[in-house]
Each structure stands twice: as structure tokens, then as C-alpha cells.
């Protein structure tokens, strides 16, 4: 028994070590995947909110888009396509208003929802590329 036990011990240790490594590896990986999925979900939620709450002015043809085209040029008129908007700037402009755009209060747009919209408008290039691929039926 003892020899058998001794024989098996290193193996058990190895398996245990492998298990620990695997758990650690897949655990971190899982957290990363979950975080990425979470970020993707937040961007998607933010997109829905942006389109629902801001879209009537800030989608193509909207008043905000037209006014921004006049002020900054057509290539900077669609907020969802801008990459120069920082989270702090979006939050400030939304809360205090700018030029013709009135402020949005925290009852009509709570901070939690504004945060999601900010996630969408400041999404990384990878998310924008994926959107374009999806919208054009391009490469997976």
C-alpha cells in the first residue's frame, strides 16, 4: 500500500498541480472572457440606449447631426462614428447641454444609463471593426 501510495503520490501531485494550473488558467481566461463579454454587452446596451434616447437627433438625418455637420463638418457630425469624444466630455455635455442641445437630467437619463451610452460612444476600435464586419456581412 505504502509503495503504491508512494507510487501514486507524485502522480496525484502532478494531477493536482495540473488541475491548479488549469483552474488558474481557465479561471483567469474565463474572467477575461466574461469581462470582454460584459464589455461587449455594455456596448450593445449603450448602443440601444443611444439609438433610443439620442437617436432622434443624433442618427443620420437628425437635428443634432445636421447642426453638427454645419458646425464641425460632415465627417464629425455622427456621434456614433466619432473617435475623439472622451467619456468626461460626453458626460459633461449631456448634463449641461451645448449650443442648441438642452441638458439631460438624471431622471430622464440616470447616471447608470449615461455610463452605458458613454461605453458605446467610446468603444474601442476592435468593437467598431466588428460592427462594420457584421453590418456588411464581411469576414468573421
Amino acid at each position: 500500500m505504502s509503495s503504491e501510495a508512494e507510487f501514486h503520490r507524485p502522480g496525484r501531485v502532478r494531477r493536482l498541480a495540473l488541475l491548479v494550473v488549469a483552474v488558474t488558467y481557465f479561471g483567469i481566461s474565463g474572467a477575461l472572457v466574461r469581462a470582454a463579454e460584459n464589455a461587449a454587452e455594455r456596448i450593445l446596451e449603450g448602443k440601444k440606449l443611444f439609438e433610443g434616447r439620442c437617436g432622434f437627433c443624433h442618427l443620420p438625418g437628425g437635428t443634432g447631426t445636421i447642426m453638427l455637420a454645419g458646425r464641425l463638418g460632415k465627417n464629425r457630425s455622427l456621434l456614433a462614428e466619432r473617435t475623439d469624444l472622451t467619456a468626461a466630455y460626453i458626460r459633461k455635455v449631456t448634463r449641461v447641454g451645448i449650443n442648441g442641445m438642452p441638458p439631460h437630467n438624471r431622471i430622464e437619463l440616470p447616471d447608470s444609463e449615461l455610463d452605458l451610452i458613454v461605453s458605446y460612444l467610446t468603444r474601442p476600435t476592435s468593437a467598431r471593426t466588428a460592427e462594420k464586419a457584421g453590418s456588411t456581412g464581411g469576414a468573421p
Partner: protein
Amino acid sequence: MRLLLPPRVTEKSFHKALDAFASVVGKQWVLATDEDRETFMDFYAAGDADQHVPSAAVGPQSVEEVRAIVRIANEYKVPLWPVSRGKNLGYGAAAPCLTGTVVLDLGRMNKILDVNERFGYCLIEPGVGFFDLFDYLQANKIRLWMSVPANAWGSVAGNALERGYGYTPYGENTRNICGLEVVLPNGDLIRTGTGAMANSASWQLFKYGYGPSWDQLFVQSNFGVVTKMGLWLMPEPEATLGLNIQLPDPDDVGWAIDELAPLRMRGVIEQSPSIGNSLRFVATRSQRSEWYTGDGALPDDVLMEILKKNNLGWWTINLRLYGYDEVNQVHARIIKEAFARHTKQEMEVVKWHRGDPIENSGAGIPSTQVLQIINWRGGRGGHIGFSPVLPATSEHVLKQFRSTKKRYEEIGVDYYGSFTLFERYTTNVNMMVYDRDDKAMTSQVRALFKVLIADAAKQGYSEYRTHLSYMDDVALTFDFNNHALLRLNETLKDTLDPNGILAPGKQGIWPRALRTERA
């Protein structure tokens, strides 16, 4: 914006009231930071935003929460300013009349409770916006059309309660109200019309109920907080036929009114056409500085040059017929004949049939594009409108048009006016667009507004709706028997709202304890 307390309320008592509000709605929905106060101020104000500063805002989600808030407001004598969505742009937005008032923001109460296609109505909460209801009708393929105002960012119920209007045959929004649920200033809850029967089978069908009819007493008033509204919607017509024409001469508005008014009254035209000076189109597409950089009002010759370049007449008329195609054709012929008596110009015809894309139908489609006008003067723009109601005759319309335009020129503001024709009257919207950071310009606008109120009153013309800063001025023009109507309104106010907590000063109606605040 720093905290400014309402009259009669100590800071300690105010904060106790806010804590009590928070115990009802949750802390998240009581907004009282400096930035929060800014978000409820009159963003487009012509230099008078500091006259109407809210102290806080509270956002209930249910009728019971509204009732609890109203009871607390009574306890602490904290005034409340109910807003449906707070988008009453050009009239004060979400800001209260009296500084220190707490905004009661009903935007979270945004349920579409019922839409009945067979009988053509909806039952909605105050937070439902025009875009929300439009999307709902479209998504559910419900063949009912809305009446939508030019700027449609706001609340469907709120607009009807302010007597806003749209451009379909159901254009007088307040007329379509059929049944309200209202929290009274003492926290009691009532339903108007037949809704006063707990099991009413016709709340959204029969407006009047039994005995006095109360719906209109909650319109442009401060007698209650409307928490549900029944509103009639228009059945989708089989076809529509639009007729557009440009009239070259300023005086053309006279004969146009005389020709159109009888047709409107007889139902040949069922919607309310707008006869507007074409600057409204120019102002949405360009800025003044592109055409003219001088001071004072835009000179006539410059305007004529702008209109010529854009192929526009002095006035633009867009009218539309709704119903069976054959009937529309006959009515179109009658209208064209009327115009042919005065002009050789052909009317542009736009036809729509059920099943065609809705964009060209003349249905009420929400948009905010009209807000582009505020860019006209450059800088951070704003707008305000003076809108008297006149008899629909050339005599009244021409006199009013000439005298108003002259006032604009004397004070140095670009004339921007329109006449919307209803069955027996016309609403003359006179828009003033300004750079709200230009103190000289905004003070000119305020001066012009006051002069126009006085001029109109001399002619017996009242405003249909007004900005916060002029509610007392307009109320005082209703002077029959030494302001007997105001006495009645305030007698009612004191009876229903003895603590004076609901919207003090709205439409010039002040509660006894705050009458010294009257402007």
C-alpha cells in the same frame, strides 16, 4: 446653480422635505445638486433664467408616489412644479414659475396603458413622448395617427395639457382629451368624465360625464397633477392630398385667410394649415450671417434677395386633405378654384395612398428638426414665441401682421411669423430667435414681447399659451369686470390648494399665501 429656497420654507425644513421625498421614491430620484438644478432650468431663456430657478427635482414612478409627494409638500409647504417630460422648449422647458419650487418630474411614469384601434384612442401616462407613442403604433401596426407639434421632443399628454397643436385633422390636441386621472393638491385621486364610475365602460369615449365636466379645468392650470390621460387618435385615412403654394407678396396673407377660413369652417379643409413667412425655411437651413451682418432687423430687400435665391415666396402655405381619394379630389378642386381667383400660380400636389411610405403622408411624424432655427443668430441660440389668437379674417390678420412686423423692426428683431388656421380663429405665432449670450439682443426680445402683449390686448387678442416670464402679464389682459376670471381661478385655487403647493403662478394663478410674488 446654488440652492435658492422657496418662500416660507427654511433650509432645515426644505431638507426634511427632500428626505421625506426620498423615503417615497428612493434617494436616486431626488435630485438636488448644483448641476441637477442647472438641468431643470430654462436652457433657451432670453436672459431671464435666473427668475425661474428650481431648488430640486423629484421623480416618482407611480400614482401612489405622486400622492405621497403631494402630501409631503403640503406638510412642509414646499411648492411643486409638475412637468410631464420637461421639454416645453420656448415656454420655460422644465423650469418653474416661482424660484425655489421643486420640479415634480413625471418622466418615469411613461407607460402606454391602452391603445384601442377600434375606437381610436390611447390611455397614457404623462412621461410618454411623441417618439414613444409613434414607435409603439408603428411596431404594433396600429392604424391610428397622432397629432404632433413642430418640435416633438416632449410629452403627448403634456402638450395636450398646454394646448399645443399639430397639423392633422386632430390637430387641436387639447380637444382630443377624453378622461383624466388627477392627483389633487390635497393628495386625493380623481378620474374625470365617466371615469368617475369605478367600472366605467366609456372613460375614453364620452368626454363629459355627469354634471360639471372637469377635463379642461386641469389644462393650463395648477389645480391638479394629471397622472393618466385618455386621448383620441385619428384613424388612418385611405388617402391624403397635399397642396403647397408660395405667395410672393406680404399682403397675400389677407386674401389667403379670407379664402381658406370658410373652407376650414365648412370642413372642406379639416386640418389646420399654417401660413408662414418663408424665413422659417431659410432659418433652418442657414445662418443669418451668411446673408447679412448688419444690426437691427433683417431689411426687406435682403429678405427678398434671400427668398429669390431659394425660390421661395414671402409666404408658404402647406395644407392637406385627409380621407377618401374621391372626396379629396373634389375638395382639392374647390381649394384650387379659390386660389385661382387671386393667383395664376399652380399649387404643388402631393398624393399619398394607404400602403405608401408614411413619410409623405401628412401623418404626425415626430421630429425635432424645427429646432435648427435657433442657430439663425449664431452663438448659443434660443427662441420664444408670442402667439395671439385672432378672428380668421383679412382685416384682423393684415392689421396684426403689419403692426407686429413694424414692432420687430422698431426694436431690431428679425420678423418670423405664421398664421395657423383653425375653424374660426387663427393663431399667430411670432417667433423670436436670439443668441442667448448676447445681453443686448435678449433684452430687445424681452422688450418686444412686452410691447406685443400690450398691442394685442388693445385689439382684444389674447395669447393661447405663453412663456413663464409673461404668465402674469397675459393673465392681466383678461380684464373683464376687473379681472373677474382671475378672481374665480384664484378662489378655486385657494379651495383646492389651501397651502398653495401646486405650481404657484402658473398661468398667472397664485395661491393666497404667495400672491405677493405676482410679477
